[in-house]
């Protein structure tokens, strides 16, 4: 791990209600600058809601959200230093690709030529060089996503928010875009926050992951820790296909737990995992290393 990075986003006891429904139940945690961070959890766990509170599309009922040291309580979505890639991509259908990408520059200072240049650069960055004049509705799913990325990144936000951006793509395209996103994140150095329900995707792409259940963060850790030392049985169950072996603790001294038989590292609720089992979870975890190595990202 590199030296401690500065904090980009800080949540302090964030609560959100929809009527009687308690959607976020005391979210606390930090996201560091330049980090690829994932919010992982089953549907309805509040991960998208949390992302939308960062963007400013949802208000919060209690607590504080700080972005780059500033309280976002009274800051509207259109002035926050965040930009979002929507699940549906939200490409403006009545505009060309170039107009879509340059949309955020409309109110920025700068000449027409400067803006055209910025659009061309943004398109080149996402591999759509020369697509500027195409009609946005004529693009494929993968291309739409690249347009959405270019459009969000052109304003050079401090934080890029990605709401399940890969869920609409087929498997092959998805894996390709995972690599592209990691590359892009390294290239621009912006904090990426990815919402996903796909464990593999989160493990492969993220520097750190917050696993959420029922409006709470169950565990916030790097993929390695999450995989090796899940905080609860629920996290372990969600992260990979696991074997759970019921056991009774005979004795525990420090980190050494002695269940009725062999010996294994301590695990919060004593759900023990086979250390190097051939489970699918293991293979998933190793994919990150493989993937990054293959594309010279390690």
């Amino acid at each position, binding site marked *: 791990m590199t030296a401690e990075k500065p904090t980009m986003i800080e949540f302090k006891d964030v609560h959100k209600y929809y009527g009687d429904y308690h959607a976020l139940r005391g979210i606390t945690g930090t996201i560091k600058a330049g980090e690829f961070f994932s919010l992982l959890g089953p549907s309805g766990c509040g991960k998208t809601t949390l992302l939308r509170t960062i*963007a400013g599309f949802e208000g919060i009922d209690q607590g504080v959200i700080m972005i780059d040291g500033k309280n976002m309580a009274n800051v509207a*979505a259109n002035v926050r230093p965040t930009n*979002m890639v929507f699940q549906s991509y*939200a490409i*403006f*259908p*009545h505009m060309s690709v170039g107009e879509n990408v340059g949309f955020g520059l*409309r109110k920025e200072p700068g000449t027409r030529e400067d803006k055209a240049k910025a659009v061309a650069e943004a398109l080149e960055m996402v591999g759509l060089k020369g697509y500027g004049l195409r009609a946005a509705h*004529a693009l494929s799913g993968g291309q739409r996503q690249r347009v959405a990325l270019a459009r969000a990144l052109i*304003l050079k936000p401090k934080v890029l928010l990605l709401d399940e951006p890969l869920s609409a793509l087929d498997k092959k395209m998805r894996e390709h875009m995972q690599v592209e996103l990691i590359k892009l994140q390294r290239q621009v150095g912006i904090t990426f926050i990815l919402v996903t329900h796909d464990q593999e995707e989160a493990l492969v792409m993220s520097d750190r992951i917050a696993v959420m259940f029922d409006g709470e963060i169950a565990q916030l850790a790097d993929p390695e820790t999450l995989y090796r030392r899940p905080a609860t049985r629920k996290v372990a169950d969600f992260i990979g296909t696991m074997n759970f072996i019921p056991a009774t603790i005979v004795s525990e001294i420090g980190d050494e737990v002695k269940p009725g038989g062999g010996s294994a590292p301590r695990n919060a609720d004593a759900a023990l995992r086979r250390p190097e089992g051939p489970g699918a979870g293991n293979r998933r975890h190793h994919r990150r290393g493989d993937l990054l190595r293959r594309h010279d990202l390690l």
Partner: protein
Amino acid sequence: MKKAPALQAFALFYLLFLYGPILLLPIFAFNDSKVVAFPLQGLTLAWFREMLADQNLRQAAWNSLIIALSVASLSTVLGVFAARASVRYRFPGKAPIMGMIMLPLVLPEMIVAMALLVVLLSVGIPLSLFTVIAGQVLICTPFAVAILTSAFQSLDRSLEEAAMDLGETQVSTFRLIVLPLVMPGIMSSFLICFTISFDEYIIAQFLGSGEPILSVYIFAQFKFPGKVPAMLALGTCLVLFSIILLGVAEYFRRRGIARVGGTNSGGIL
């Protein structure tokens, strides 16, 4: 495809019943006889000349145009507000409020016209083109709301959020994103309200001040057999006008669909 002769014959008869009478309009408009009956007598443009020479008719057409344009504009603007509010926001009393807006759709027009007349007279507002406009807006707004609600519903919410996310305000987002995308709906609403208002009779009759209005005027003219052929000439012009209007509307609708790459889900044509 299997053939069903009975159904085909029915369909043919149905279409004939629907559109046959309209075909009679131009036939008798060019017929050189004061009597609207076969056999045809010969070709003439006299009825069109008579129609154009009629001062009252011209005044009626002009008044109707003013009414229809005002009603279409007002109803569509009100419809935009109501449809937007009903699709996008939750507020107390939403269901009853929307219900009340849509109610004139099923309320007999007679009742609305009578009630409005009583109220206007008791309050002491003089009848004029304006009272006709106000009454027709009440009738047309539900149509506008219905059309525009579907237009707003098909608008992806995240498009607006994306625009705000990219630095636009609520107002500029509406102007740059929402308005262009619901424009086909606005056009349809405008044209339908225009058409409803243009041939609306009951409210025009009840709430008019005696200034000639086309629908009322035409009906009155039919009392005089000698005036009928000129009215048929007018009818011919109106049919032509409707076809042109419809064609223009359809052209813009298709262009709108092509521009955003949607699939044609069938419009009026």
